[in-house]
């Protein structure tokens, strides 16, 4: 599957912004804690990712994620 990091980043930022935080705050280094993104939000993000890229993210995968960049990198790696 040919997914670019830019494509994933754009989709992740768009999805997270729909959960509440301002899009300008959603950078690669921003932590989910700073963005007030909680476990329920991450489950929703995982649903979008699976629907879009066929990448299945489990609960244990999500627990390791601290920053937006962590999520983007994991999705790109899994999609490769």
């Amino acid at each position: 599957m040919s997914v670019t990091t830019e494509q994933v980043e754009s989709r992740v930022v768009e999805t997270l912004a729909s959960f509440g935080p301002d899009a300008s705050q959603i950078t690669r280094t921003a932590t989910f804690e700073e963005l007030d993104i909680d476990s329920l939000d991450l489950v929703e993000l995982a649903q979008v990712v699976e629907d879009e890229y066929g990448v299945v993210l489990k609960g244990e995968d999500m627990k390791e994620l601290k920053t937006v960049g962590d999520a983007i990198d994991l999705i790109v790696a899994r999609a490769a």
Partner: protein
Amino acid sequence: MTAVPHRRTVVVTGMGAVSPLGLGAATLHDRWAAGEVGITDGAGTCREFDPKDHLSIKEARRLDRFAQLAVVAAGESIAQAGWDGDAPYDPLRIGCIVATGIGGIETVETQHDIMRDRGVKMVSPLGIPQYMPNAGAAAVTMKYSLRGQSYGVVSACASGGHAIGSAMRMIQYGDADAVVCGGAEATLTPFGFACFNSMQALSPTGMSRPFDARRDGFVMGEGAGMLVLEEEEAARARGATILGEIAGYGSTTDAHHLTAPEPTGGPASRAMELAMRDAGAVAEQLDYINAHGTSTQLNDAAETAAIKLALGDQARRIPISSTKSSIGHTLGAAGAVEAVATLRTLITGVIAPTLGYEQPDPACDLDYVPGEARPLVTGNGHPPLAISNSFAFGGHNVALALRGAAK
């Protein structure tokens, strides 16, 4: 019945409402008294309510509409109480009860569509926390950091009345010093209409005209009513403005039929008697009744019978009107929305009319305040006293006795 021991008095220090007549407790009663009807196309929709005006994106998308309505009405009531985001009591001593008849039905419908169309894996993790019937209580407690006893109350169209009665008892017993309580409902959805329509409960003409001979069913509405209740001495000690008193609470059950009221009105009348006794009042002291008055043939006749049983000769003297003539039936919110309307009646001294009431029915032969609003008349200078009734599918009956603040 044994004598009631001395107990704590429960006063109202804040009220809020979101209704088909607009935002605000005062708006609800003022517009109703002015003869405005909030019903359009056979539904009482809160058209002036936009969640974006009141809630962040994160709050709004995590709450079903019924819980959004509850939070906004609660916000108004808390602001009026003067809590200003900083409650005057230990948060662990502040309770919260938010009633609903149905819960987050819009969420259920949306998520069920997603499951059918896109598969089980796409059902939102927010589904359950949005549609659970306690979601209103959860949302209000989180928004305002209330950490005492909290829960939802579910008894169909009596839910709002049960919430206020239970909150009153919580304070009287000493389990809380204040309770934010009320009810919320938002069932104006395709499935909601389909279910009530198939029961033939809804008015085919889309008109809510309680007690009128031509009444042909209720008009479904949505909304929320919330109140801040406080123990009287504590409220006075902090200098709060007392808006009124939850003076009495009575509740019984028909145990008769799944949906039809017990036709003699016996159990419903008993609820009214209990509320009056709880308030330490007699029928001669009652100044107004805010009826359940749904605009169904069965309810309005049975409620009339119940009022006569409970109040005897006094029944013909006491003005009775139905808020549902203006906003329709807000189901699990109704008891709370109508308690707010009743208290506004006692505060303003204006009894709003039963709108649309024109043709008398021999089965409904009391004073339903036809036509226009009229002044509330109280005898002997005592604080005005009213009853607000709520009856439900399932046979649940609630009567609240509400007393105006002493001048």
